[in-house]
Each structure stands twice: as C-alpha cells, then as structure tokens.
C-alpha cells in the first residue's frame, strides 16, 4: 500500500517536472537542473523497483519451497507409501511383484510425462485435451505460467503434477494384484495414462478444461486435489480391470490374508503424511489456502479412522489395525476433492461418512457382487472418491475459498444446489471415460500381449515368475 502511494507521488512529481520542461521547450532529463530533490527521487524510485523485485522473490521462495516439498511428499506416497500398503496386503510370494508395479510407475510415468502427457494435460488445446506444444517439456522453463501459478516456476508445477500422474495408475494395481504380467501392466498403464488420466486432468485442471472451475470451464466442478481426476478414475478402472481379468485362482475359497499388516501399516502412515503434500500442495502456494487444505486433510483422515473402526467394532466385535488404516486412507480419499473448499468441522463430517461408507463397500457390497478387487482399489478409491466429490458439492463454502467470486454461494449448504449437479456430472464423466477407455485398452493389450499370468506363474508367485527373485529368503 505504502509502495503504491510512493509510486503515485513519484509519478505525479515526474509528470510535473517533465510536463514543465516540455512546456518550456526542453526535451530530456539531461536538461533538468540537477538538484538534491531529483537525485533523491531517482534513488527512491530505484529502491521501490528493487523492493518490488525482492518482494516477488520472497513470495516465490516461500511458495516454491513448499511446492517442492509437496512434490517430494506426493512421490513418497507412491514409494514407499503405496508400495508398502499394497505389498503388505498380498501373499508373501507376490510382495516384490506388487511393489515393482508401483515403482515401475515412478520411473515410466516420469519419462512419459516429460515426453507427452504433461503437454496433453496442461498445455492449451480444447475443452477435453491439451495440445502437443509442451511435448518434451518445450516451453516449460523456470518462469511462472500465471494461468496455473503466478509465483512458482512452471517446472515446479510440472514436477508436482507429475507425482499425481505417477500415483494414479499405481492405485489401479490394487485391483489386479497377484495376477497380471509385468510387461502387460507396463503397456496397459502407459496407455491408461495417455488416454484416461491426461484428458481427465486437462478437463478438471487444464487451461480451457470442460470442468475447470478456476479457468471458466462450462461445467465448473470443484476438485481441489484430484478426487475425481485421481481416485474416481483409478478406482473405477480398477473395478473394470478386476472384472475383466477375473478372480485369482482359488478366490474366494482359499484363504489369502495379508502377509504383513505391519508393512501395510507403515505404508498407510506414509500415505497419511504424504497426503499433506497431495492436498495442501494443491493450493499451489504456501499461503492460507494451503493451511485450510492441510487442516481439512488431517480432520478428514482422523474422522474416517473413527468411522471405519466404530463400524467394524460394532459389526465384527473387534477393531482391527487393518480396518483403522483402511479407514484413514478412505478419509483421505474423500477429503481430497474437498480439502481447499471446506471448513475443518465439515472435514470431520466428510471423514466420518467416508469411513463408514467405504467400510460397508468393502465388507458388504464387494461380497454381494463377488468381484475380486484384491486390494479394494474400487471400494476405497473409486467409491470414496465418488462420495468425496458429491460431499464437496454439499459442504464447499465460499468463506474458505471464494472460488466462484467473493460472497457467491459455493456448495449446497451455502445455498447453491447447482454445484452438486456439476459434481455429479463430473463424476459421471469420469466413470464413463474410465469404463470405456479401460475396456478398450484391456482388450487391445490382452489380444496382443496377454494380460494375465499363466496358472503356473500365478501359483509360484509374481516375485519368482515375473522378476526371478524372492522377497523373503529364509535360507540366508
């Protein structure tokens, strides 16, 4: 404010001085008599400019620091967070195989993102997909792109988004655990990232995206950190994959309990902590919005632990560790689209509802239909993400984030019922794209390479059959 006043004053002074000298017939500053006043004004102006630069640099330093840390946190969610969480849930003979599926995404999607999918997601194109002019990260330098984040280098934005692109296909692996060929998985998830993730990310977050609430999309949907883009797409694709591939040999008669709830526990805690990068980092700055998202994330997770645990305690008689950590993940999934839009108390409600809802999805609905979604990717991510998107439509509040303009009602409880319709539309679109796209890709990969491991390979286990290794060697 003060800087502005000084600038206006200086501008006024210069106008007088220059205007005066023009009227008197003189043309340049050189003709002005050098006096202590003009020297001081020049010095002040120079300092004002330097201050403005320093302030911008300070802003960038704060925001960029947080964003780089957030990117690292989200990567940690994949490795080892998800790798351990999923790994502990499978049988011993498949531990390495399961972890390798997530780890492969960390490597492959990184390169794919640079070569193609960043451009498809975030360069300008049409309402459904971006263009190709950012391929090979062309034009993605250290200067900010104000369309996305004005205070951080575009490369920071790119690398942050990359971590989302990595974990999303990794989530799907939970549905086809213990029975997909490593080679087929690589091809399948690469195609999935191009055909399903990139367009979805573009529609919700990209310039001109159909569902983009911040950039004038036709059907503005609120998805703060990727409830729809990440969890609905991966969860629904997971269900499709589980149905297409069929059940594991022996399922459901042969007992297949987790071989290490201990490792899953460690993974789940890493997911929880990492999720602060996922949600609070989606503020794309280190300001108060990041705080809102951070706080909402914590409350959503904790409330969901309680929701799932209480439901399980009542229904089964004992609160299990696996249930508690599953509840946490369910809550984190549900709060993901809502994080930067809801109050802390609303976050608690969202978490509680999600905990109970996902618990029932996993223990009741799954057995009704009998599909083998081995690690409940659909039950937790698909269902939790869908629920979260709809609850965002209910609980979003302009007091937390005036996304539609200052004072304009955002969610249902604030008086705007239209948002809920848009949320449903966005979710419906994600479901559709995921189902259709995944079926096509699965069909193609299956007919060319073959998706499922042979019966013998499935019995020996993925560690040996796909990777020639044993996760646990008792003989040494």
């Amino acid at each position: 404010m003060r800087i502005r006043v000084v600038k206006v004053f200086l501008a006024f002074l210069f106008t007088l001085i220059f205007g005066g000298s023009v009227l008197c017939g003189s043309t340049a500053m050189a003709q002005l008599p050098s006096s202590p006043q003009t020297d001081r004004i020049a010095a002040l102006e120079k300092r004002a400019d330097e201050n403005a630069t320093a302030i911008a640099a300070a802003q960038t330093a704060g925001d960029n620091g947080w964003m780089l840390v957030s990117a690292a946190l989200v990567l940690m969610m994949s490795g080892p967070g998800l790798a351990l969480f999923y790994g502990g849930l499978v049988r011993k003979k498949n531990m390495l195989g399961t972890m390798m599926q997530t780890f492969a995404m960390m490597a492959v999607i990184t390169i794919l993102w640079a070569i193609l999918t960043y451009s498809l997601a975030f360069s300008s194109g049409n309402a459904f997909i971006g263009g190709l002019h950012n391929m090979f990260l062309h034009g993605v330098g250290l200067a900010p792109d104000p369309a996305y984040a004005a205070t951080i280098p575009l490369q920071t934005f790119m690398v942050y988004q990359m971590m989302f692109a990595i974990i999303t296909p990794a989530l799907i692996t939970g549905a086809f655990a213990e029975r997909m060929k490593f080679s087929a998985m690589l091809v399948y998830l690469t195609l999935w990232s191009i055909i399903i993730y990139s367009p979805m990310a573009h529609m919700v977050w990209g310039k001109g995206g159909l569902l983009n609430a911040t950039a004038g999309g036709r059907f503005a949907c609120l998805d703060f950190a990727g409830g729809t883009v990440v969890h609905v797409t991966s969860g629904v694709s997971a269900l499709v994959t589980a149905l297409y591939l069929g059940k594991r040999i022996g399922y459901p008669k042969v007992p297949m309990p987790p071989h290490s709830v201990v490792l899953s526990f460690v993974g789940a805690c890493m997911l929880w902590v990492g999720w602060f990068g996922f949600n609070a980092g989606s503020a794309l700055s280190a300001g108060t919005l990041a705080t809102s998202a951070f706080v909402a994330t914590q409350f959503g997770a904790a409330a969901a632990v309680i929701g799932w645990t209480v439901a399980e305690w009542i229904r089964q008689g004992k609160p299990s560790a696996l249930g508690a950590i599953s509840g946490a993940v369910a809550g984190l999934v549900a709060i993901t689209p809502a994080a930067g839009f809801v109050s802390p108390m609303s976050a608690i409600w969202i978490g509680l509802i999600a905990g109970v809802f996902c618990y029932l999805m996993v223990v009741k609905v799954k057995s009704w239909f009998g599909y083998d979604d081995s690690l409940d990717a659909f039950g937790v991510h698909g269902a939790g993400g869908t629920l979260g998107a709809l609850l965002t439509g209910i609980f979003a509040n302009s007091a937390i984030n005036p996304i539609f303009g200052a004072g304009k009602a955002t969610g249902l409880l604030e008086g705007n019922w239209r948002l809920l319709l848009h949320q449903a539309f966005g979710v419906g679109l994600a479901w559709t794209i995921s189902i259709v796209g995944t079926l096509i890709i699965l069909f193609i990969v299956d007919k060319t390479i073959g998706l499922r491991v042979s019966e013998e390979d499935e019995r020996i286990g993925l560690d040996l059959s796909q990777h020639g290794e044993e996760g646990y060697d008792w003989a040494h």
Partner: protein
Amino acid sequence: MQKIEAVIQPSKLDAVKDALVEIGAEGMTITEARGHGRQKGHTEFYRGREYSVDLLPKVKLELVVKDELLDKAITAITTAARTGTIGDGKIFISKIDDAIRIRNDERGEFAL
C-alpha cells in the same frame, strides 16, 4: 541313543531349554512350527473376510540323548512345558541308528 521330538507352546521354550541344559543335554535343534492336536483354532478378520486359522504357532525341539539320559530329559520337558490345558504339546521318542560329529568324524555316543 534316542531322539526326542517335542512340540511345545512357544511361550514355554525358554523354560524347557533351561531345564534340559540343567540335566546335561548338550545340544538341540529348535524350529518354529505350526500345528494342532485337539486344540481348536481361531478366526481372524481382514477387511471383512473371515479366515479360520487352525495352524497354531508352536515350537519343535529335537535332541538326541544317551539312553541313560532319556527319562530325565522327558521329565525335564514335561515339567517345564506343562500348563494343564489343551495345546501343551507332545513328545515323540525314536531310536537313532548313529550320530556323527562333522568337525572330526567322531561317532556314536561320543558325537552327542
């Protein structure tokens, strides 16, 4: 020479080992095992699925003793391992044809 195979509760391992060392048994092999006799198992729950677990954790001791030490060894084990409830375990005795010390080829009772 007689071989003693004893399947006992894992919580009794230390007591049994100490008792055997006390009566002069000089070596034994201990393995983690799972099994059951008349003991029923229990159910575990993972994500809503019920699993009946009837392979319970046990410890198996194997040792070979001179004939004169056999009765003492059996008594040592039963006294240390007994709780009085189902699941205490079992002891099996068999005759050993020979024993060889790998280090120096000693045979028979000298190898024990």
